[in-house]
């Protein structure tokens, strides 16, 4: 799996098993975590290429080097790959698996074989999705949201793609089930709920959303297949069906899904900021509570995706109000992170830079979410590039940047080697700059009226589209520098000890890289996760 072998007697080699089959059939949460990391990140890069293709098409109006059908397929697959094959499985699957069991003082998750099965379901689902791109009627062209009636009628390979997503969803459910059980049952002695790292709290809240919301996605996808294959007509007005009911079912999952995306990311930030500010986190209990509150309240707001669908005015009012409610616990977290920084001893290494920019970018995304959540303003910006800008700020500027922060923060622990700081900072600066140019332009374009998912646009939108595409290139260059630097470091960089960042959570108390069993003896926990007094830091 790697070229440079890290220090001896770690999970890389202490079981004596090192071939590829020892990895893809491993039940060790660390190996599974890395399997998830490489597979999900690989799909992220595929999604990036698709995104760059879209931006290239949109660099000037009237370009036709890809046809309209292809364009529809590209934005559909970009969405499906990024959402179902990267963001949703990525953070829980990769970092949840790598980090959470060690942080609670456990040897592994509650159901290690189920954990492996989850990864295989993900791979099989991804393979099915990929197959749907090259067989039958070709890649789906419905948008990642698969709205009826088009998804029921289009000749493209919707059924197969949707089956693939169903499989990936089942993987997500099993991961959530595994993590809830693990956190309830396998905490070490002394690891009370009040001493859990906030990353674990966020993984816990996420796991609940995975368990309770994903089944609705499952049945919704089955219903699409039933519409296409059996002709059930449940969403066909000509046969008594209601297409808005599809939207309800779809968003009942897909809105909580965005909290599956953001909660673990927030957990990373909650762990990184105290370490790099050398200060215990401000308001631990409120952040933990807010994670649960976001998961709960986030399940009540799905209708804000449907304000223009023909839904009743009463529902519009109810969902708009509830959407404002869910902003509150997110804001609490932002205030607490900033308060943690106040009078802290801040050091700006790569994990911290990504974490700090997360706060800004997530806040912009969140505030624009309020504009979308207010029904009146929503009418103006629904289905415009304003929405595209909003969700990229939260999903990419939020979860994406948190993912990059986690990569720099934790991967050296598992490889035993680290990246070079200066190129990482350069990469971050390029990515931050490119990101804002790329997506802020979109929000302005949206306000001016440029629709989303359209093949072409009016000439008056041309200048900002050009700016946006240039931003995408700056971002891409930064991304390449970041990846080259990071992976060169992990495989050939300077060795690191067990606690390069001075963290106080349990993963820093085990050797670097950790042994398969994680702990020689089950730890007894005597202090909180952000206790930076001498006794706290291993």
């Amino acid at each position, binding site marked *: 799996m790697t070229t440079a072998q890290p220090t001896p007697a770690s999970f890389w080699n202490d079981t004596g098993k090192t071939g590829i089959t020892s990895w893809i059939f491993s039940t060790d949460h660390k190996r599974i975590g890395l399997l998830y990391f490489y597979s999900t990140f690989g799909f992220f890069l595929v999604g990036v290429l698709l995104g760059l293709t879209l931006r290239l098409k949109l660099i000037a109006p009237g370009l036709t080097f890809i046809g309209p059908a292809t364009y529809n397929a590209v934005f559909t697959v970009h969405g499906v790959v990024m959402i179902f094959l990267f963001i949703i499985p990525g953070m829980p699957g990769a970092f949840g698996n790598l980090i959470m069991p060690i942080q609670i003082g456990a*040897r592994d998750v*509650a*159901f290690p074989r*189920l954990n492996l099965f989850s990864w295989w379901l993900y791979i099989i689902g991804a393979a099915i999705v990929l197959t749907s791109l090259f067989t039958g009627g070709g890649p789906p062209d419905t948008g990642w949201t698969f709205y009826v009636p088009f998804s029921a009628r289009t000749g493209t390979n919707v059924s197969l793609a949707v089956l693939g997503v169903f499989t990936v969803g089942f993987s997500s*459910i099993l991961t*959530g*089930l*595994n993590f*809830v*059980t693990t956190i*309830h*049952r*396998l905490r070490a002695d002394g690891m009370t709920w009040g001493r859990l790292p906030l990353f674990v709290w966020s993984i816990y809240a996420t796991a609940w959303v995975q*368990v*309770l*919301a*994903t*089944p*609705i996605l*499952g*049945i*919704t996808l*089955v*219903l699409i297949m*039933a519409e296409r294959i*059996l*002709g*059930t*007509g*449940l969403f066909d007005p*000509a*046969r*008594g*069906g*209601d297409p808005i*009911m599809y939207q*309800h*079912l779809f968003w*009942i999952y897909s809105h909580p899904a965005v909290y599956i995306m953001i909660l673990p990311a927030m957990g990373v930030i909650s762990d990184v900021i105290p370490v790099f500010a050398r200060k215990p986190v401000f308001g631990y209990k409120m952040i933990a509570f807010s994670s649960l509150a976001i998961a709960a309240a986030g399940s009540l707001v799905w209708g804000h995706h449907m304000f223009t669908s023909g839904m009743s005015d009463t529902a519009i009012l109810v969902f708009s109000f509830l959407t404002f409610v869910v902003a509150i616990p997110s804001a609490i977290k932002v205030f607490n992170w900033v308060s943690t920084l106040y009078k802290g001893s801040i050091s700006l290494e790569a994990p911290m830079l990504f974490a700090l920019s997360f706060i800004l970018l997530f806040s912009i995304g969140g505030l624009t979410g309020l504009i979308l959540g207010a029904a009146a303003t929503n009418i103006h910006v629904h289905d415009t590039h304003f929405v595209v800008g909003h969700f990229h700020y939260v999903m990419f500027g939020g979860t994406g940047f948190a993912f990059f922060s986690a990569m720099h923060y934790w991967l050296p622990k598992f490889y035993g080697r680290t990246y070079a700081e200066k190129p990482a900072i350069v990469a971050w600066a390029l990515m931050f700059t490119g990101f804002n140019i790329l997506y802020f332009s979109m929000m302005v374009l949206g306000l001016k009226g440029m629709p989303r998912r359209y093949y072409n646009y009016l000439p008056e939108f041309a200048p900002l589209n050009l700016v946006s595409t240039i931003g995408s290139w700056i971002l891409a260059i930064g991304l390449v520098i970041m990846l080259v630097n990071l992976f060169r470091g992990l495989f050939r960089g300077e060795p690191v000890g067990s606690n390069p960042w001075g963290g106080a959570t349990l993963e820093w108390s085990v050797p670097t890289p950790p042994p398969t*069993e994680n*702990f*020689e*003896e*089950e730890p007894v926990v005597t202090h909180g996760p952000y206790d930076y007094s001498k006794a706290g830091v291993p």
Partner: protein
Amino acid sequence: MNHAAHKDYGGAKLGMWLFLFTELLLFGGLFLLYAVYLSRYPHEFTAAGRDMHVGFGTLNTVILITSSLLAAMAVTAIQRNERRKVLFLLGGTILCAAIFLFNKYLEWSAEIGNGIYPNSPRLASGPPGESVFYSLYYLTVGLHGLHVLVGGTLLAVVAVRVKRGTVHSGDFVLLENGALYWHLVDLVWIFIFPLYYLIL
């Protein structure tokens, strides 16, 4: 660190219950649709309900309730180390599952023979609410039937392990979890029965 493979009985049970919650929500989506369309087409739903085979439905309800009893008794039996009784009871449960599925086959054959199936010409020419009722019926009962098949298979696997002795009075969480899954199958039908057969 104790490397012996210790089993967490409570954890295994918690995991199974969490899985049952996901099944609850999976069927929940279909019940949500039912609730919405019932409120929209009350007359067509009752009319279609009257055409349903209440006899088959009631018989199947009794069969599933009985199968649930047998599965629950099997758990008691293994706790009391009454191995042969366990096999007998599990066999009974699986037999009930088979009869249930056979009844379903008869019922559906009759209905399909009458031109009642998703997107059939007869339903296409009838009132829209009726077509919706039957689409939901086939999807819900079909998905449930799939779970009966899976549950029956699962219990058969458990029975084999009981016979071999790998599931026994000291370690029977597999049987208990299998029985939990089976009870879920019964629970879903407890709601399907009145909503589809007694909506008169």
